[in-house]
């Protein structure tokens, strides 16, 4: 069952998107630069394992990764995250949240002129470090910042 689902997810994930892109004439085979959806990393339940499985194991701390996140999240379901990597040759920016059930949130592979800069919005279960992983020149770097998440429900 589990294996079936894994196979299904794999084919529905990366390969599917690539097929769409190729079908639409947007990509030529060979231009695609990401691997299949990394189920092992995304389903890992601790951040160290998730980072290792996603290729950020043993990442060096870096001050050239700037993270803009709230101090206190207005809503854990909608936490803005802005990452700037000043590390030359940045190819990947990944987001991890230590205290989420599954800490790996996303991995963005960038190329063809894309700057080391990603903005998105994420869900956080509770107060946690938001940890950023960056890959550049075959090496992994990391930085983190804490975001407090309160149990809301009465705001307005």
């Amino acid at each position, binding site marked *: 069952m589990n294996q079936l689902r894994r196979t299904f997810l794999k084919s529905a994930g*990366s390969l599917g*998107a690539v097929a769409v892109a190729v079908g639409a004439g947007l*990509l030529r085979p060979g231009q695609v630069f990401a691997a299949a*959806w990394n189920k092992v990393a995304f389903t890992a339940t601790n951040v160290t394992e998730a980072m290792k499985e996603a290729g950020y194991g043993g990442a060096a701390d870096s001050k050239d990764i700037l993270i803009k996140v709230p101090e206190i999240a207005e809503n854990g379901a909608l936490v803005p995250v802005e990452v700037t990597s000043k590390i030359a040759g940045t190819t990947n920016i990944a987001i991890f949240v230590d205290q*989420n059930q599954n800490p790996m*949130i996303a991995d963005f592979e960038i190329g*063809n002129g894309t*700057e080391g800069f990603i903005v*998105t*919005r994420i869900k956080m279960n509770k107060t946690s470090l938001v940890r950023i992983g960056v890959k550049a020149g075959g090496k992994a770097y990391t930085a983190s910042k804490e975001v407090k998440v309160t149990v809301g429900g009465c705001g307005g």
Partner: protein
Amino acid sequence: MADDMKIRATMQGDVADVKILMNHIMETGLRKDPKTDKFIPAHFINEVVVTLNGKPVVQAQWGYAISKNPFLGFRVKGAKAGDKIAVSTVDNLGGKMQGEAVVA
């Protein structure tokens, strides 16, 4: 039905500022339906490919913890007005979405 996604791409100097908002429930699989007390199955975009004039500029892998109606913003150096942005997404149940925009 509302569109699959909204794309805003504007030149700021020699950099294209691209902002994408996608129409997707991003169900985590961790929530229970209060009526049935059963978990609502996970349903989330797990792959995003963005190209500029056919060349991939961002290819993302996502878990379920990207917020509902996902937002993605990034910048591409060396782009110019008139360039074509194309976005394709696939979710964990095989659902696909596409969007296109011209850099303004």
